[in-house]
């Protein structure tokens, strides 16, 4: 007699849930394999190969939730955990003042797999470590470079989602990333420049398509130029933001406020709420007319395009902001009905078998415009071109934000000139997006992903991708990121 299959475990758990009288239940069984190779200062500091197996059972009993999970996938633990989830749901129901009602979703039976050409697990470790060591060596060829990092990461999830409604979904998902950074020291100052792959659902080919030595030469030179660059002068500037930088701006100032659970107060004690309250939907001018932000969990290769979410809802594409007007939320089956929607947008995700699914930002991207990047810059008399991610902070309703960046260039009279350092800009979200005057065309569109978006208690990490073409913002307040007052 062989080991029980995931089919048998799932049936065992869901049979207990059905017998309890619960109106809904699901189980996620997951096997996650992660490899992280970290280089630091010309050495391979660590290679970690992690296996994370377990399952979680979610139960809706008389309109209230219970969730239990375990890393022990056995014939003894599966029924114990299912019973515990029921018990927790019963307790929640005993003090419930309002019943959860799930939005309808068709029953699905499907299998979703990430297409890839090169399995990162099959790539010899020596090849991966050699790539990182050679990249760091190139970084240190620049005399002022004192520190370096280089990293390759990949993660493969094999997962089963099965519900009492009859949905059965199997997943085999892969994501890959790589990055390098260099820190230059000059005159008692230091500055870091980095190059990051965009975290995509691809195979190892994502790593192999990059000319790492060339990128390392550029990164090291720009780190040196950055540390020697003049500090920015406080003032009002036009900003041209590159797609990687915009991915973070979109994430923090549009993505989070568009999560409906936040707008309804679910995250009030930690991640915060949202200034995009439900009455604003369809009526609030979030940005200028060129600003259209679309959630697309169907775009191949992006992190949230998993076919189905952890409610078993099919991934979709919808508008968050259309021609500057706020029109849509990221939702799950629980909160969708609270704003009168009949179907979830399919944005409910857990960060593994041990986490309960919560509403997550979708793959929200800024729709391209019609200009070239040169045309955007040519229209700027005094401005700054910003690449990459730096410091970032935003209030708990997502109004007041402050962003830095990884690299900054002064724009004067329509031309990008020399680098600057210590650039910080701040503003109020809708005022900022209403200052957007143009977006570059589709040929400039790039994607960047996130795997460390913190939300929920216990905190979970969300995965999503934000795409954009460079965009021009007028009259933004810039301050020098140094000193106190």
């Amino acid at each position, binding site marked *: 007699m062989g080991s029980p299959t995931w089919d048998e475990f799932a049936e065992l758990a869901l049979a207990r849930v059905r017998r309890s009288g619960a109106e809904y239940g699901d189980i996620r069984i997951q096997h996650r394999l992660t490899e992280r190779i970290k280089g630091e200062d010309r050495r391979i500091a660590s290679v970690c190969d992690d*296996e994370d197996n377990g399952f979680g059972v979610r139960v809706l009993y008389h309109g209230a939730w219970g969730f239990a999970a375990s890393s022990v996938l056995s014939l003894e633990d599966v029924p114990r955990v299912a019973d515990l989830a029921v018990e927790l749901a019963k307790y929640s129901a005993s003090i419930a003042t309002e019943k959860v009602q799930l939005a309808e979703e068709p029953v699905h039976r499907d299998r979703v797999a990430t297409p890839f050409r090169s399995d990162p697990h099959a790539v010899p470790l020596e090849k991966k470590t050699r790539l990182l060591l050679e990249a760091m060596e190139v970084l240190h060829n620049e005399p002022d470079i004192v520190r370096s990092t280089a990293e390759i990461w990949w993660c493969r999830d094999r997962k089963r989602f099965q519900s009492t409604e009859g949905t059965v979904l199997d997943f085999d998902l892969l994501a890959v990333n790589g990055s390098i950074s260099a820190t230059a020291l000059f005159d008692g100052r230091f500055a870091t420049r980095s190059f990051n792959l965009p975290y995509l659902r691809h195979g190892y080919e994502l790593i192999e398509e990059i000319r790492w030595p060339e990128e390392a030469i550029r990164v090291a030179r720009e780190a040196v130029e950055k540390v020697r660059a003049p500090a920015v002068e406080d003032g009002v500037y036009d900003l041209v933001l590159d797609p990687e930088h915009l991915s973070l701006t979109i994430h923090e100032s549009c993505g989070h406020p568009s999560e409906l659970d936040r707008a309804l107060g679910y995250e009030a004690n930690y991640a915060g709420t949202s200034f995009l309250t439900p009455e604003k939907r369809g009526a609030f001018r979030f940005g200028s007319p060129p600003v259209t932000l679309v959630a697309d969990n169907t775009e191949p290769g992006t992190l949230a395009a998993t076919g189905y979410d952890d409610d078993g809802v099919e991934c979709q594409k919808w508008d968050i902001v259309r021609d500057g007007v706020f029109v849509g939320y990221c939702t799950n089956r629980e909160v969708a009905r609270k704003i009168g929607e009949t179907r979830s947008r399919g944005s409910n995700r857990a960060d593994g078998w041990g986490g309960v699914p919560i509403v997550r930002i979708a793959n929200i991207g800024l729709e391209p415009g019609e200009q070239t990047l040169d045309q955007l810059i040519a229209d700027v008399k005094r401005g700054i071109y910003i690449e990459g991610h730096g410091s970032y902070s935003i209030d708990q309703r997502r109004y007041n934000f402050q962003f830095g960046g990884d690299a900054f260039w002064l724009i004067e009279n329509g031309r990008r000139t020399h680098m600057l350092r210590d650039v910080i800009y701040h503003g109020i979200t809708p005022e900022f997006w209403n200052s957007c005057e143009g977006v570059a065309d589709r040929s400039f569109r790039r994607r960047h992903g996130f795997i460390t978006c913190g939300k929920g208690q216990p905190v979970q990490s969300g995965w999503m991708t934000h795409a954009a073409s460079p965009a021009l913002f007028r009259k933004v307040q810039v301050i020098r*990121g140094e000193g106190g007052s």
Partner: protein
Amino acid sequence: MSLFASNPWPKMTSRDEFRFLADVIFARSSGDHTVVTLHDERAGTTRFADNRVIQNVDTRRGLLTVTVSFGRRHGTASTTDFTAGAVQGMVARAERIARAAPEDPEYLPPPDPRPFPVRETAREETITNGPVRRHEYANEAMGLCRMENLMAAGIVSSSVASVGVAANNGLFGCETRTEAQFSLTVQADDGTGWSAAAHRSIDHLKIQERTLAAIDKAKRSREAKDLPPGDYPVVLEPAAVAGLWSWLIWALDAKSYDKGTSPVAGQLGKQIVDKRVALSNVPDHPDLFGVGFTAEGLPSEPSQWIEGGCLKQLAYDRFTARARGVKSIPTLESPIFSVKGASFGSVQELLKQIDRAILVTNFWYIRSVNLRDLTLTGMTRDGTFLVENGHIVCPVKNFRFHDSPLRVFQDVGIATVPAEAVTPEAGKMLAPAMALPRFHFSSVTRF
């Protein structure tokens, strides 16, 4: 209600079981050195918002990690599956990595075996009563808020974990650790108030006291007034102080110090903050999360990091410590930040002495702006007030700050004795509330 009577907590990995697992791994490993760590945890959270339970979760996760080395080549693998085949597979994966990895010039063998301090890291009441108490406490907090027609959002959580480290040179440590947490945000119209607690004992969360404090803050926070950004004298409550200090602690990394990329580079032995300020590690303090040993297999001992405002200690990795001839590596998991001569017992007592200042309950989303001088930014949150002539005059809209703890703590005014400071971003420490003569708020938000 006989909640969980039919579903007792499963037995966690015991000390003897961990020793057995470690011995099995050592027998399977062909490495020169083999180090095993254990983190077997059961944790539950009752989460509420809008005065109702929105999540009720309970998770058991066991994690074994092994690092195998051949000379200076090393590899690490982990698994959540404790069956014989999976453990054997984990060792094989670590060995495969170690054989293929390049030599690491900074690799060091595991620390020599030594007895670890035995501390009261687990409280039986948290293990036994945790799940039931979570529900009772959540209900109590929501009930108190409902009585005032206010909205409550928060968590009550409890956990028990078996934590171990072992190496094939004889190093061995295993202890049980418990933790309980409560945090609450109360909404009163457009105002919010917050409070939090964390302790090894679930009996020490002071739910009623904390809830009433959050309710009071929320009610006082209604209809916040606009004040312009600029430099203000401030009174920071312990959580706000801890938020800034956690970044200063981060800045004490010894390797960055040596490379010149630390904001305190060249400052060891010199005064970096006000002469009355001290920072120490007090692992035996009953209100802190002291441990017997670290994941690296180092003992946790009392240590002094800042004394008389002078930087006395850096945070060493083992390689940097050896390179600098540091024999005993200090840890800082139980920090107490104090101000010499501080005598006020509470924030309320301290406020009576304040002519004019902004009172900050907590900071949110603190991030570095410039690591050279440790300029940080962040927002005030859940209780920001104007204080005049010893009294709270009105709530004010939340500010963004833009300042460095290395600057603002140069000149510390009156302060309280260290008190519990728990934040989601900084964890737990004991820190005083304190008055600072000048703090830079760079902008204001809409609420």
